[in-house]
């Protein structure tokens, strides 16, 4: 079978950024903790591929270090969403129609109705701005997404014959959920996880832009943009580079998600053909 264009482009972009974040652990072109004020706000050059910022730091190195923060925050936030949401969804599906199902789903609706950004701001404001609080604030709103989706996916699997066979053989609903339902909704979760990952990158950028994300000296794309705001008129590259980096990372993840959905869910392919 042929891989779709969005899958290939998305995978390349995503791997590129993951790679940049990984490399930053052992090597960056320059040390971002060293300030070089005389070399501040230089446009892109051979020495500094993406130029330097207002403190003379190499922007490429900052972007690589920032990739770590963005990816870590978004990844862990998706982890929270999956780790709590999928068990809740499986439980609701296994007890379909019971009061437990009702409570879980109503709870989901409630969290869904909250303006996530406002609550994230509230959480980080009261508990202090930090990467950990940003992860929690973003992660909470991932829970209902995965709970809903895994419940819907699980319900359609529960009606299959092989589940009936498993029940006849005496397996408990908990065992069926883990051994038969979960593997069958895995693809669905991976696709949604990719999309939530990209939303997490955007949310982290917004939070750190308004000063409620990772704190200095931890590099973050959102804060690079906040610092660049007043300098945009004299040195446009300090505002352009981090923004474009976010756009490409998010674009890559979205394309990857679309591509994976087409690849893993044959029904969609039939509809589109």
């Amino acid at each position, binding site marked *: 079978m042929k891989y779709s264009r969005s899958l290939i482009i998305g995978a390349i972009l995503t791997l590129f950024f993951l790679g940049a974040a990984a490399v930053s652990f052992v090597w960056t072109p320059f040390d971002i903790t060293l300030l070089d004020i005389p070399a501040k706000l230089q446009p892109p050059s051979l020495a500094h591929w993406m130029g330097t910022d207002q403190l003379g730091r190499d922007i490429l190195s900052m972007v690589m270090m920032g990739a770590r923060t963005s990816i870590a925050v978004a990844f862990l936030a998706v982890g929270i969403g999956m780790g709590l949401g999928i068990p809740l969804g499986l439980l609701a599906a296994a007890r379909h129609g019971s009061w437990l199902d009702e409570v879980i789903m109503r709870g989901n609706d409630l969290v869904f109705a909250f303006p996530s950004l*406002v609550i994230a701001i509230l959480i980080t404001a009261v508990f202090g701005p930090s990467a950990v609080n940003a992860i929690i604030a973003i992660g909470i709103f991932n829970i209902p997404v995965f709970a809903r989706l895994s419940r819907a996916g699980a319900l359609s699997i529960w009606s299959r014959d092989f589940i009936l066979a498993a029940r006849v053989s005496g397996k408990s609903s908990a065992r069926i959920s883990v051994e038969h339902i979960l593997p069958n909704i895995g693809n669905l979760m991976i696709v949604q996880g990719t999309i939530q990952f990209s939303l997490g990158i955007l949310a982290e950028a917004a939070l750190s832009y308004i000063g409620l994300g990772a704190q200095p000296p931890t590099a973050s794309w959102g804060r690079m943009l906040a610092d660049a705001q007043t300098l945009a008129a004299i040195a446009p590259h300090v505002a352009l580079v981090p923004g474009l980096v976010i756009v490409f990372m998010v674009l890559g993840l979205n394309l990857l998600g679309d591509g994976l959905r087409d690849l893993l869910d044959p029904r969609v392919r039939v509809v589109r053909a």
Partner: protein
Amino acid sequence: MTRYVLGRLVSLILSLAVASVVIFSVVEIVPGDPAAYMLGINARPDTLQALRVELGLDAPVQERYVAWVAGMVQGDFGISYTYRTPIAAMIADRVWVSLPLALYALTLSVLIAFPAGVFAASRRGRLGDLGVMGSTQIGVAIPNFWFAMILVMIFAIKLRWFPAGGFAGWDKGLFAGLKSLTLPAFALALPQAAILTRVMRSSLLDMLGEDFIRTARAKGLSRRQALWRHALRNALIPVLTIIGLQFSFLLAGGIVIEQVFFLPGLGRMIFQAISARDLVVVESVVMLLVFLVIMVNFVVDLAYGAVDPRLRTAR
């Protein structure tokens, strides 16, 4: 229909109750002593005690919660600790920036998305469709606050068509007010327009596959005529829901955009309150925003039920 409305009403009240409890707990219970939080570590004991009395912290938690909710229901949001003015009056000023901004952005989003969605759907699979869909992919990937900075660089600093920030005030006339909200509204609207375009397109395409469209085609309508006369109206139902959701998103998303443009709206009010540790203001404004969002969702649900009778029984 009555049953449907009642059901929605119960869930509305429940949502508001849970929201108020969560916000109250996060602000007033979890940090321990709100007075100590507001004054910082160097507070003198007598100032601290005075603030505790002022905030009514000596009363039990349940009583404080009830007093807070009862106050808000009557329009009393408390007194700002830093400004020494009633919060309700501060909100009243700033709402006239935040609300028009959200409405302006919503209007732009619809004005962009409708033609783009219809265009893409009517040229499905062709170059025009691919172009629109490609643009929406980029549109959803752009952080709106960064787009805002780019707009400022081009239209405020280079071309000098619009102000780079600040708000002229409605007393300077409608035009001056709208002018200072134009760049912020575009920044807010872009990602939303991209999403709405996709919904519009896919909803139209779904409709074009329906039997009644085949009937319309069979009686001699062209593809385009069938789209305009029959598919569009039916495709609008899911689009309306998304528009409702977007309005609440725009209200909340305005917080960040107001920061970029130094607009004196509710978002800036929250941030100033956060940096001044004015918890009373944070609590009330967050509750107000959550209230607005939940109310908008409620109205959308009702409108949805009115437009599509099937939904009234579905729940």
